[in-house]
């Protein structure tokens, strides 16, 4: 067993009114991949930010190879050989790959940047990581997965001993994830200590050696991953036995009612080709497929975010055309977008304002909802969806990811839609909230007779919640599975193209 590379002991961090971290210990050995797990708000991000110098700690010590360190900025942390790759790639998309890797510490010759060396060394670096890319091309000419790996390459190049990966796989598909894992394993063999933060259990079990679990800012424990069954890990994270986590759909699949929406040969260039689809009331239809398969694009067409070039939409038998989200909303369609931060929340507004925004937009600026009524609506939905807020007047950007997501779902439920489209509603949020959202989806379909389109990268949760699965590949619908056909083998086969 190798010596601890990094030791964090008795870490405390307070925010106004919140104990974000209380007496947390964390140990990382050289040459191990260590998972950091916990629900949203458990303190994972705070712990990482303390380690990387984004926040100063209020108490405790950090030892790096036996030397106490107290980085006051990410740059200082980097100098202490701690590098971080964040969930959102924070590089410059319009600079070349090589520039991105060396930005801020370009090798110089006679006071000028030595581009030859930059490109040559970048080339070596990407070859080491087995990335077949041209380092002189701009970063945005590559997929997010590649960008992520470039970020890792940059981190590796600064000669880091500790590499922190904060939700690196949340926007990657299965193939890309595997490539990323190959890179991470190579770094592990080189003796690097890797901290891996993710919500994907499969990935944790596949990749990691040990796991540290946090809950409510406190340390739950540190475990060998091989000796900790999954259900036990989950119950440690949530702090309660969650028997129903596996059986959201236990009451039997919701019964499909009358036809709500039909799409006939809907096409839009570069988005989707010849989509035929029928959605009934009271059913949950999953759109399965890889990123870029057309699942989001199909949903956007149904919501007026993009216009079909061919084909027609029929709502309750009548042809409709949506030229904007507002028109779709007037026809009782709601769309909860994929990227919560960019397309969902209005960060500087309060939770109340975020919740009533959709309804207010539907009513128009001149039919103002009185403040009293707004407060009543906000309270009702905060209670119904159990959104954790200190007050409805709290700014939404200060909520954890899961609670932000719930508030956005609330925004759409307030508009009382007939068709609710949820694009990756459970991405990047904790398992407890995930289970709540899955349960809610089934309930809405069953009790409110809503038609729900559910898009997710996690096939498991789609299998658990959906009555019908539409599988998309390369911007085409390739299969439709119902009832007993919905099992992971069939779905995987359809996604992969083996049907």
């Amino acid at each position, binding site marked *: 067993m190798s010596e601890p590379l990094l030791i964090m002991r008795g870490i405390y961090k307070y925010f106004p009114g919140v104990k974000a971290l209380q007496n947390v210990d964390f140990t990382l050995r050289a040459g191990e991949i260590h998972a950091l797990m916990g629900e949203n708000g458990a303190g994972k991000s705070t712990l990482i930010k303390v380690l990387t110098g984004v926040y100063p700690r209020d108490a405790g010590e950090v030892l790096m190879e036996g030397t106490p360190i107290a980085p006051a900025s990410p740059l200082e942390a980097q100098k202490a050989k701690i590098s971080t790759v964040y969930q959102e790639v924070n590089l410059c998309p319009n600079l070349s790959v090589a520039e991105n890797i060396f930005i801020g510490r370009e090798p110089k010759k006679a006071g000028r940047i030595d581009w030859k060396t930059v490109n040559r060394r970048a080339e070596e670096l990407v070859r080491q990581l087995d990335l077949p890319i041209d380092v002189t091309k701009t970063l945005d000419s590559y997929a997010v997965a590649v960008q992520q790996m470039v970020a890792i390459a940059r981190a590796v190049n600064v000669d880091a001993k500790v590499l922190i990966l904060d939700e690196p796989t949340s926007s990657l598909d299965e193939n890309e994830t595997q490539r990323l894992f190959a890179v991470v394993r190579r770094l592990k063999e080189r003796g690097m200590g890797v901290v891996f933060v993710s919500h994907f259990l499969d990935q944790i079990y596949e990749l990691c050696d040990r796991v540290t679990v946090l809950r409510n800012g406190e340390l739950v424990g540190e475990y060998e991953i091989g000796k900790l069954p999954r259900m036990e890990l989950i119950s440690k994270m949530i702090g309660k036995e969650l028997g129903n986590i596996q059986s959201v759909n236990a009451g039997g699949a919701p019964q499909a009612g009358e036809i709500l929406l039909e799409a006939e040969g809907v096409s839009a260039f570069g988005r989707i080709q010849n989509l035929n689809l029928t959605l009934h009331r009271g059913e949950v239809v999953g759109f399965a497929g890889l990123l870029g398969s057309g699942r989001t694009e199909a949903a956007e067409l149904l919501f007026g*975010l993009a216009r079909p070039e061919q084909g027609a939409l029929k709502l309750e038998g009548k042809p409709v055309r949506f030229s*904007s*989200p*507002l028109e779709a*909303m007037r026809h009782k369609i709601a*769309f909860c*977008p994929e990227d919560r931060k*960019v*397309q*969902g*929340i*209005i*960060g*500087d*507004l309060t939770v109340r*304002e975020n919740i009533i*925004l*959709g309804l*207010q*937009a*539907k009513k*128009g*600026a*001149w039919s*103002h*909802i009185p403040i009293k009524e707004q407060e009543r609506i906000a309270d009702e939905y905060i209670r119904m969806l159990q959104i954790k807020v200190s007050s409805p007047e709290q700014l939404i950007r200060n909520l954890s990811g899961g609670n932000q997501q719930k508030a956005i779902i609330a*925004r759409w439920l307030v508009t009382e839609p007939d068709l609710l489209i949820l694009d990756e509603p459970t991405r990047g949020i904790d398992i407890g909230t995930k289970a709540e959202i899955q349960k809610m989806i089934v309930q809405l379909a069953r009790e409110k007779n809503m038609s729900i389109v559910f898009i997710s990268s996690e096939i498991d949760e789609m299998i658990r919640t959906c009555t019908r699965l539409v599988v998309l590949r390369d911007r085409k619908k390739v299969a439709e599975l119902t009832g007993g056909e919905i099992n992971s083998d069939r779905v995987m086969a359809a996604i992969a193209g083996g049907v």
Partner: protein
Amino acid sequence: MNKFRKLISSHLFLPLFALGLLLIFNAFATPGFFHIQFQNGQLFGRIIDILNRASVLVILSLGMTFVIATGGIDISQGSVIAISGAVCCSLIGGAGDGTARMPLVLACLIAVTVCMLCGVWNGFLVSTLKIQPMVATLILMTAGRGIAMLITAGQNVPVYYTPFTYIGNTIPGSPLPTTIYLAIGMVLLVVLVQKKTSVGLFIQTVGINSKAAHGSGLNVNSIVFLVYIFSGICAGIAGLMDASMIAAADPNNAGLNMELDAILAVALGGTLLSGGKYYISGSIIGAITIQTLTTTLYALGVSSEQLPVCKALVVILICLLQSDKVKRLLEQRSYRKAVDQA
């Protein structure tokens, strides 16, 4: 300590603090600064003068606040002021016999409508053609004075029709200048619209995250359109006041650089130039503060050529106080002091 901090972080603190400083300074430096006389049913005094001039700026900065809240900017306001004066004065006519060729109210309405069309133009460029606000409004900023010149045939147009001068001065029998009533009226209108409609919420939403606003069903384009139209209307009304004060249309100098004062007022009031949350009360106090500064500097004998230098110094100060970095430094210092004392 906590209360003090709360006070400092309030968006009204900075403009009020600056205004307070100016007033205290004037109390010592300008004899009779606070003196108000009541003559012939009318109030006179330096304070009244300041409020009179500030009213123009208040109305301008109302328009500017909403534009800035959507993440835009309108640098054509000054030129639109010139257009407004030119249209109104030309319609009333410069005949030296003190009569009007067109009824005053009608001339004013037409002038404001023309300015509203200027706003429509700006709104069209920004929201429909997606031209960057600074560039889009730069067009009218440069062209506006030329348009005003065309309207007046290159001349200054003096107006001898007395009721016209009432807009920028005092209606006989009223204790206060008309400008103040107009400014109060506009402010009340804005407050009413904010209370009774969701326009304010929508503007902020667009300014904070326009993509999410669109996806939540807001018509982002029409909201952006609207704020530029309102800015045009505000500039139109301000232009009437400005022309009335000198009883003439002066296409070259009317409202010159006033858009910059308006932007400064909005910034001073705590609204970030990047858009999002806006503070009407802050903009109003900001406008009054800037006018007080201008008047104070004139009273000190600073020439109008040197005035911008002094204003620039104030801008630097504001920027420093608003920067997060400086705020944090100040907070840390006061925090350390508190720790030392404890």
